[in-house]
């Protein structure tokens, strides 16, 4: 995937986060978000393997083998951080104590269903914390390209891949647009980087309303 597109999606998704929120970032595009946050947007990053207060990647030579994130990459811990076991970590997630989960997806439907863990015909052997996160987080933001590598739409009427959970997605950020699910309906609220309504319509099979907001435009 084009790195510029990934960075643009992450940059727009970063603006969905508010100061003081507790946020869990999935693997891939969401992991680019820490570098995109504006200085006054201090969020607390949670990683499900047992840390609240994830800091930047360590400098070379300062890697601590006991300190990783859920992607199994080395991280640091910020002042004010805490460590906990996995049951406590997922109790935080399931119990609604996380403000936001940002994660990638294979497909999202108009009803907010998400498929992001299994592809039919391939190995269905890794789910990790995906199901817990999308069910438990108060707000679920999906960052993904508008189409798959084969050019197929990813914002769809109904998911065809196995579901991670039904009716849980609140916001979808692609390189073309932002969708929000409001009162059970999908709304196209913003066009990004010069995309047109026709550009979005051409790659979206989900039904949606057009409710463009000016507030997020830059």
């Amino acid at each position, binding site marked *: 995937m084009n790195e510029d597109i990934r960075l643009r999606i992450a940059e727009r998704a970063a603006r969905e986060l508010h100061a003081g929120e507790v946020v869990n970032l999935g693997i891939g595009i969401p992991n680019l978000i820490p570098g995109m946050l504006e200085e006054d947007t201090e969020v607390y990053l949670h990683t499900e393997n047992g840390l609240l207060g994830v800091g930047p990647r360590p400098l070379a030579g300062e890697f601590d083998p006991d300190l990783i994130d859920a992607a199994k990459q080395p991280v640091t811990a910020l002042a004010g951080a805490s460590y906990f076991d996995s049951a406590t970590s997922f109790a935080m997630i399931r119990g609604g104590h996380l403000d936001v989960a940002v994660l990638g997806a294979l497909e999202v439907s108009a009803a907010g269903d998400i498929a992001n863990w299994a592809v039919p015909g391939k190995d269905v052997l890794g789910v990790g914390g995906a199901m817990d996160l999308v069910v438990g987080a108060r707000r679920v933001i999906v960052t993904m390209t508008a189409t798959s590598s084969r050019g197929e739409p990813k914002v769809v009427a109904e998911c065809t891949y196995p579901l991670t*959970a039904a009716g849980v997605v609140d916001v979808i950020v692609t390189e073309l647009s932002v969708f929000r699910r409001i009162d059970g309906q999908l709304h196209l609220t913003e066009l990004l980087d010069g995309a047109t309504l026709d550009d979005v319509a051409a790659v979206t099979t989900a039904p949606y309303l057009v409710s463009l907001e000016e507030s997020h435009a830059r």
Partner: protein
Amino acid sequence: MHGVISAEEAVAHVRSGDTVMVGGFGLVGAPLTLLDALVEHSDATDLTIVSNNIGEPGRGLGKLLRQGRIRRGISSYFTSNPEAVAAVNEGRIEATLVPQGTFAEAIRAGGAGIGGFYTPVGAGTLLAEGKEERVIRGVPHILEEPIRADVSLVYAARADELGNLWYRRTARNFNPLMASAARVTIAEAGEVVPVGALEPESVVTPHLYVDHLVERV
């Protein structure tokens, strides 16, 4: 607690056909000295392994996998070891995939004497197949049963001679849960300190959960 023993003595507690819990998130917090002893000094086979991952190729549980001694894995993420994925696809091991939070909570329940719990996680998905579903306050939930083991192998950075355990950073993960959920719990410690050297408030796993201690090599 029966004191500090060698890794070789410790793994003699694992018998063929046993269910064995192994702590760690990937290799972080995994009891690598105990796993190496299991590979080198034990013939126990036909094992059911309860661990978030099945090691990495040739590392941690990945060694035991190569020896063909794992019959079944209960895990949230087999995918981190491609050899485990291949073993499942070739029918050499049976896989039970569990969402990570459900996995952790089922082990916690197993150690806490809870007969199961209803969770919304997984409801309406492939992983709900065969599980009782119940709508609670308007939300579909599925019934998950507790997980227990014959033997738990856990890692803690520090233990005192009674078996109180202190974990370091994200190496804690599943270890305290697994320490509570087995008939025999063996803790590998990075360092064994005298009784009284751990602040009582810093003890995460009180010694009553721990049967044997092994020092990390």
